[in-house]
């Protein structure tokens, strides 16, 4: 995995540590960021129900994917079981609000914390492993937790699933996509800012050091066990928050759906966006959310034509989507291993240094 330095395009120099760690390198980028958030605030007024539901999806999946990126992209620990933590967050939030009568407003962060605890349980042993052993251990975690969901009727409602209350704040019911969108937006902004800031602190840099060369990191006094476990906990926390937001958005959580394919989709988001890039995660999530929609649209356009009759698209579309997910993962890793974020950085550098760009 290339370090962040190597990803920087030609001609983009930093002369001090301060400028290297700054969140918004230019005033323009700060402006763009604020403009983007403000523009999104007006989205419910402009977009229909469909567009809004896509945005909400990008929001909660993006939060969970960011957790995975902290684990995979920043700490270099692979996890093939992210979806079950997402699922655990969803069930935990529903459980807290239904059974323990915790207001949903508090149930979401509580679900995040509960998921963190579960993540730490799996993370502690995982801290001793790395690379492919860890991949296999998290694969086992995926199946064990999935089995737990189906078994623990008191927690998940068993095969019937469980209903989740809608979000309310100080007695005011947040009903409908239009209002829930703002809840997700607030969480996305908070979580992404928190992650960006984390990577500037001592702990964040320790995570990157563990990724780049864990032996050197240990020699420099970084406690490997602590940071690997912490990274697992963080990833689980983000997944839990994402899952909780998902639960209260749909209003219903089913034990199915948190399968290994979903876990792999999270990995795909992170890889497509760019391992070790925070904004890249959002790009990757957007890509993965829009991909099936675009494919569905294409299939609809082709319906009735010769290609449709030959391939029977309407029945095959589910499998075609899965195939595309697999193909996209492979193609990105072979041709664009640094993801969309890297491409974006290059485009930006091209225009910044326009006539003399390399």
């Amino acid at each position, binding site marked *: 995995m290339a370090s962040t330095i190597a990803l920087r395009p030609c001609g983009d120099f930093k002369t001090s540590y301060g400028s290297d760690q700054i969140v918004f390198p230019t005033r323009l980028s700060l402006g763009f960021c604020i403009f983007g958030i403000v523009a999104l605030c007006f989205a419910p007024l402009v977009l229909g129900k469909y567009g809004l539901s896509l945005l909400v999806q990008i929001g909660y999946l993006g939060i969970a994917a960011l957790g995975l990126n902290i684990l995979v992209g920043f700490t270099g620990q*692979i996890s093939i079981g992210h979806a079950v933590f997402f699922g655990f967050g969803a069930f935990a939030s529903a459980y807290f609000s239904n059974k323990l009568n915790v207001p949903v407003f508090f149930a979401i962060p509580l679900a995040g914390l509960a998921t963190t605890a579960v993540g730490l349980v799996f993370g502690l042993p995982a801290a001793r492993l790395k690379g*492919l052993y860890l991949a*296999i251990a998290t694969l*086992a975690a995926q*199946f064990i937790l999935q089995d737990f969901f189906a078994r623990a009727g008191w927690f998940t409602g068993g095969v019937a699933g469980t209903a989740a209350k809608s979000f309310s704040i100080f007695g005011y019911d947040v009903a409908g996509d239009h209002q829930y969108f703002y809840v997700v937006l607030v969480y996305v902004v908070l979580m992404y800012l928190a992650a960006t800031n984390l990577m500037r602190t001592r702990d964040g840099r320790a995570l990157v050091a563990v990724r780049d060369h864990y032996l050197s990191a240990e020699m420099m006094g970084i406690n490997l066990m602590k940071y690997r476990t912490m990274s697992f906990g963080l990833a689980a926390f983000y997944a839990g928050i994402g899952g909780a937001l998902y639960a209260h958005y749909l209003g219903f959580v089913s034990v199915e759906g948190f399968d290994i394919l979903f876990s*792999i989709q999270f990995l795909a988001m992170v890889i497509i966006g760019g391992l070790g890039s925070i904004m890249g995660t959002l790009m990757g999530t957007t890509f993965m959310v829009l991909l099936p929609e675009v494919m569905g649209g294409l299939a609809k356009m082709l319906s009735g034509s010769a290609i449709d009759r030959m391939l029977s698209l309407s029945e095959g579309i589910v499998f075609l989507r899965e195939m595309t997910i697999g*193909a996209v993962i*492979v193609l990105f890793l*072979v041709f664009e291993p640094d993801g969309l974020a890297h491409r974006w950085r290059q485009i930006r550098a091209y225009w910044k240094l326009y006539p003399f760009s390399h």
Partner: protein
Amino acid sequence: MDWTLLFQLLVSGLIVGALYGVVAMCFVLVYKASQVVNFAQGEFMLIGAWACWWLLLKFQLPFFAAFLITLAFMMAFGLILQVVVLKPLIGEPVISVIMVTIGLSIFFQALMKWLFGVSAQPFPPIFAEPSINVLGLQVKTVYAMSTLISIGIMISFAWFFKFSRMGLAMRATAFNQQVAQSLGISVRQVFALSWGISAMVSALAGVVVGVVNGVSPALSFFGIKVFPAVILGGLDSIVGAVVGGLVIGVLENLAHYADSQLLRWGNLYEIAPFYVLILILMIRPYGLFGTRDIERV
């Protein structure tokens, strides 16, 4: 205690375990030769099984011919896959390579579902006699065949690595790539061939499972069940893969017995190997027969 049931489960555990062992050997072969953990092993089985089934039904070929064509096809498939997809990834970090094989597994699984549907399809009956008499025991012919084929594959693997030129070249490459290359072994050929053989033998196992249980997408779950077996035996040990496969097969069935007779939790059959997997990873991550990694800086 229901002794007949226990005995039956033990025997079926050994039969299934032998198949796990075969697939685990293919897995270890690829890992040893090219240091790639192949998450698409189960899909190789699935593709092989569907290909054979299709040849049998569509062209009404005799079983033996269809079987041979399938094996040749899978050999070519493995070679091409290595050359096209995995070769550009040599030298990339472990995570990328793992992710590529996961991507491949998703892709091929969905492709097979799309081409052949999701429901299980039985193989046309291959043997005239449904069961034969072995040492006074009535054994289903397919099970006897499955056991024989598994043992056959294991013996031919042993022969291949001990005596054949290519097998020795593969072992040399697994031991040290640079030294092997300087001795005139084409490492590229070894990589490609290891994938070819792995795909071919997995397909063989896939056809056997297909003949016994029918072909369905669930067959590719074998590829995941193989992980407990390989980790138990040690990632880079062929013998370990066989032992691990047998142990996991028996254990699975014992868990099934405990589940159905005593505990009644349900689903323990599926999940027990993964608890074992976590345990082994905690205690002995390099497995029973694997080489212990020692890192020097």
